[in-house]
């Protein structure tokens, strides 16, 4: 229970940083999505029930404080969490480059999912959204990917709130 509460408050702290400190930068489009990295880490190193609920709660929070009315992140964040869970035994994430690549790819999976959902829920916005991909989404996903290895390193050094499961994310699949 203590670990869940700690993980939840870490998520809220990252959310607060993302919506306050990181928005002060003049290069706003290079603002990394810290919550995405956190949820992917939860997906790799956290049990499905509590991790899924935290991903759901953080996604819900993002929806509340963003300019969308649909609840896109409430859906996409648990999906990303469970995707990371399903792939965790098939990924080699020992080196920074692979960690960055993993986060970058998942960031685009979410981006495309959101585009698809918006096209279904709000038809006609496709053109405006597509133009945001290179100008807004690409810089954000790149900066998120660049920041990701620091989070992986931090988790390795101090797995205070994350449940340690040896060999996860090292590419050793369970048979």
């Amino acid at each position, binding site marked *: 229970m203590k670990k869940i509460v700690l993980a939840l408050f870490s998520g809220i702290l990252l959310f607060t940083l993302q919506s306050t400190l990181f928005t002060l930068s*003049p290069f706003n489009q290079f603002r990394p999505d810290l919550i995405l990295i956190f949820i992917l880490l939860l997906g790799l190193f956290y049990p499905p029930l509590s991790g899924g609920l935290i991903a759901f709660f953080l996604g819900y929070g993002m929806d509340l*404080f963003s300019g969308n009315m649909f609840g896109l992140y409430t859906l996409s964040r648990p999906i990303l969490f469970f995707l990371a869970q399903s792939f965790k035994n098939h990924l080699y994430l020992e080196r920074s480059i692979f960690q960055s690549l993993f986060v970058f790819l998942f960031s685009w999976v979410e981006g495309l999912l959101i585009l698809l959902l918006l096209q279904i829920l709000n038809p006609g916005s496709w053109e*405006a959204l597509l133009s945001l991909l290179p100008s807004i989404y690409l810089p954000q996903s790149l900066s998120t990917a660049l920041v990701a290895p620091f989070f992986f390193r931090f988790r390795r050094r101090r797995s205070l709130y994350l449940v340690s499961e040896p060999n996860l994310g090292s590419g050793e699949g369970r048979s």
Partner: protein
Amino acid sequence: MRSLFLSRRYTLLTIVILLLLFALILMSLRVKQKSGVNGLDSFLIEFYSPFQKGATFLFNEIKSLFYGYLFLVELEKENRMLKQKIARLERENQEMRALASSGERLRKLLQFRESLSMKMVAAEVIGRDPTAWFKSLTLNKGERDGVQRGTAVISPEGVVGQILKTGPSHSIVLLITDYNSAVDAMVERTRAKAIVKGTGENRCYLKYLLRSEEVSIGDQVITSGLTGNFPKGLPIGKITKIENSRHGVFQHAELIPQVDFTKLEEVLIITETFISPPPEKGKIMKKPK
């Protein structure tokens, strides 16, 4: 049967299905939602907002400390006393300047508020959109202060946006640069009517601007006062680009908003519905100095 669902193989699948089903139900409920937000949403807005409020306060304090003091820490030992005094004075000076700047902003806000004969509430920006796709701000005023969904948010520089979600003491404003935003507008010089739509980046464009209308780069775009949310004559932005295709009824014009959203700290929320006066050509609201 019970043991089948509780078995390890099906546990994850059941959790995935339940969570995603719940998310989909929430999504479908939100699509139909007409009012501000539901009870759970407003509870969560109230839960998250103090963190944002605290962090914004903390970062502003750190920022002012950084500019006022930290640049002066590399002082030589023999001059420490003297330089410490300078640092203290610098910090005091910086604080005074910050106070003066804040006072000036608030004075402008008050002056602007007095120039408009409407019921308004001043609010502070405590957070910004955590996502890349949307453009919104979190304000420290909510339903208790008379803020409702759809009400207009302005600043002395011009139009900011419209309230999208409301909690008891906090609200979310959708900026005019968000691709979902639309504000009824007109070109100040030629009175040509159009809709200002957001692009999702830090600029907007004019939709439904007739090809026959004469507009040029640098023209000021103002609110038309037709939608009921915004009073007539508030500056929105200036035209920076015009594209005239050979065919079609409309022309395309881009504009840069008057308000710099990255530096916005205080705003005014119009809490009463504005009733548009009969149109008078050439008469617009006075811009504050």
